[in-house]
């Protein structure tokens, strides 16, 4: 009877346990499992160099005349994981793969679209059980570094220096680089972060686009007086509120204080710029510059842009993908009402010589990481796929049509949408683009940072407390990595 009870209790626990345990069945098996799902490719790698004649007989290719590695003529399968479950990305990315397979019929690319929500977890499970996909999407920053350090992201510096690739903007290459080694090939688009505002409301209330924080606060006061919430913010996922925090820090201290806090070498998340940012945000919350219940609104349900749509809010600091998103909801309304301005300058800091052109965003959007498990022929094939088929003219043309600007030099000139034009200009004129904290920081610190944003906007902790929380997490992360 007792045994039965123990078993009954134990069995009902199995659900909770198996969640963790499914990620834990390897760690040692990464090398052998890799070769079992790419057996044919291994055979091909040995004679990759001697197959020049064969590949030339394949007819005209997109890569003809380009300085790219000769690819194997043996059969090969490449597993590719992305998150393109929805249009328009789905067809754009599938088409790129199709063009590659047409030119290299012996190479089969198995393209698997993962749900974004589960993707990072799926990837961790796949890696730990030795089934890491050959190439996969990442967003640079802390997680990419983690993949690289664990041996699941190849160093492709040699390929990158030796062979052709699109002329990526420097910031994009920098974000795909870790520890001086190129790891990621960008294939998404750059994302700036600027303030979308309702120009009709601004005109009706006689408001000018603010250029300094003081002017911004004056605009907020006037909007508030007119019964309009100044900022449309949905802070449930916390990275949205983080944008305000990051920009206030950047305008107050450029990159300096964040960089110092990041290394914890004389710096701290309680230094002046961070306290300035926290105090400003909490002051604004108290003055009602953000919508009520800001921590429970979610951008996934479009609850922030809805506040813009129904005229109850006038401004929204957000990633540039919002332009395409709003235009897709209603091109007409978007054209009529939406314009964009860059985050206002901090006049005081400027007077002290703090650069005002550090912008927040990502130059890389998405990147491909490669996990060839030492199979050079496969790595070369993946390099060609990522640089010459993703990122080719057709791919970039489709990207532009969907209001995405590829992170490649020259595309900024081709942007036609007025909002995107401004966003791109701001981006290209930046002295430095600070990657979103929640992607730049180590994963454990990211979690603390996000909780801090929730506490900040919910007025549950002040700037000093969240600064100390973030310091503590950062110090632990640094100690861990040693």
């Amino acid at each position, binding site marked *: 009877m007792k045994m039965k*009870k*123990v078993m009954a*209790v*134990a*069995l*009902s*626990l*199995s*659900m*909770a*346990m*198996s*969640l*963790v*345990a*499914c*990620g*834990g*069945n390897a*760690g*040692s098996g*990464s*090398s052998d499992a890799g070769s079992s799902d790419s057996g044919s490719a291994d055979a091909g790698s040995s004679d990759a160099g001697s197959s020049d004649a064969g590949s030339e007989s394949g007819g005209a290719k997109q890569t003809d005349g380009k300085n790219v590695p000769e690819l194997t003529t043996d059969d090969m399968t490449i597993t590719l994981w992305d998150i393109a479950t929805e249009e328009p990305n789905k067809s754009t990315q599938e088409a790129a793969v199709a063009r590659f397979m047409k030119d290299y019929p012996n190479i089969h690319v198995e393209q698997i679209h993962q749900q974004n929500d589960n993707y*990072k*977890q799926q990837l*961790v499970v796949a*890696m*730990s059980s030795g089934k890491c996909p050959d190439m996969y999407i990442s967003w640079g920053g802390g*997680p990419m570094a*983690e*993949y690289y*350090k*664990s*041996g*699941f992201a190849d160093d492709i510096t040699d390929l990158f220096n030796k062979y052709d690739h699109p002329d990526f903007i420097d910031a994009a290459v920098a974000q795909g680089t870790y520890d001086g080694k190129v790891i990621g090939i960008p294939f998404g688009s750059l994302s700036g972060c600027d303030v979308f505002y309702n120009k009709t409301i601004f005109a009706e209330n006689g408001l000018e686009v603010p250029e300094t924080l003081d002017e911004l606060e004056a605009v907020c006061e006037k909007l508030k007086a007119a019964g309009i919430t100044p900022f449309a913010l949905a802070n*449930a996922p*916390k990275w949205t509120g983080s944008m305000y925090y990051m920009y206030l820090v950047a305008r107050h201290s450029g990159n300096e204080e964040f960089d110092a806090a990041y290394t914890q070498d004389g710096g701290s998340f309680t230094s002046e710029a961070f306290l300035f940012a926290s105090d400003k945000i909490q002051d604004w919350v108290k003055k009602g510059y953000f*919508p*009520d*219940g*800001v*921590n*429970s*609104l*979610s951008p996934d*349900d479009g*609850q922030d842009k*809805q*506040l813009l749509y129904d005229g109850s809010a006038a401004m929204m600091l957000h990633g540039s993908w919002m332009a395409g998103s709003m235009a897709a909801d209603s091109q007409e309304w978007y054209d009529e009402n939406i314009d964009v301005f860059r985050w206002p300058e901090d006049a005081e800091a400027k007077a002290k010589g703090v650069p005002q052109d550090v912008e927040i965003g990502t130059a890389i959007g998405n990147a491909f990481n490669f996990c060839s498990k030492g199979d050079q022929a496969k790595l070369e094939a993946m390099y060609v796929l990522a640089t010459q088929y993703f990122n080719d003219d057709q791919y970039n043309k489709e990207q532009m049509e969907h209001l995405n600007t590829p992170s490649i030099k020259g595309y900024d000139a081709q942007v036609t949408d007025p909002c995107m034009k401004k966003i791109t200009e701001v981006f290209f004129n930046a002295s430095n683009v600070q990657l979103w904290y929640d992607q730049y920081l180590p*994963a*454990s610190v*990211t*979690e603390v940072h996000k*909780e801090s944003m*929730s*506490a900040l906007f*919910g007025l*549950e*902790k002040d700037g000093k407390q969240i600064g100390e929380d973030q310091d503590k997490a950062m110090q632990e992360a640094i100690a861990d990595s040693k």
Partner: protein
Amino acid sequence: MATKNDNFSSLANIRKKRIRLAATVFLLPTFLLIAVYFIYPVIDTFVISTYKWNGISADRTFVGIQNWVTLLHDKLFWSAFGRNVIIMVFSIILQIPLGLFLATFLEQGGKKYNFLKVIWFLPYLMSSVAIAFLFTYALATNGGIFSSLASLFAGKKVTVDLLGRSPHALFTVIGVMAWQYTPFYMVYFLAGYGNIDPAVYEAAILDGATRRQYTRYIAIPLLGPIFKTACTMSLIGSLKYFDLIWNMTQGGPVNSTELMATYMYKLSFQQFNMGYGSCVAAGMFILITVIALLFQKVFVVKEDY
């Protein structure tokens, strides 16, 4: 004589052997499944909990009991455990009495309430993820049902923010859980009522009991053992709760709905800390087992009917 005995014993032996063989053959698949999907993962979780491991790297460092020491002093874990206990208490005092009340109501109403039976059971049939989405929309401060209704009655724009601040969020989630699980206990108690021998009812009525007296003094006490099982299920369910919380709040705002399971998930899969995440999982395993066994020990109901 001797040979006869030998024959008997060897026949018996053969029979025993055959039974043993058959038992082994029939039990093997079950045993294998349990071993692979339950015993091995549990043991492995305990093994991993002694390593410092990011979950993907091939090399992991043995750190002995260091993770366990951290766990003992981990405020986040213990406050998450505290919230699990709050949820457990409220689940038991909300879901089980409500379930019993609904079941009693339906039991007394007889067949004419069959449609209610179906309707009230529906929430339990929905997946937690769907329920989470449903309530996230209903509770939204911007156009959600609660805020809209409040605005309607107040005559001006009112924001009812139930999920965005603490401690409201935790109790809101407890309410949603009650909505989801009460129907289960309703059906459970209905089945319990169904199991009572009709002769008991007939005897009670013959002795002059009213229907109400029968329910109050005879039927409900007879449900005793079922209460115990229901409470144990609710207890274990509350302590390992994950899906609804994860989809509604992800443990936020500011950790105010963080439970042991969401904490474990974040550590293991978002923060690349599989070693410590496994330690949290193993800690959960021990805590839940101990609490469930204690509960069974303390609330012994005589199974004598």
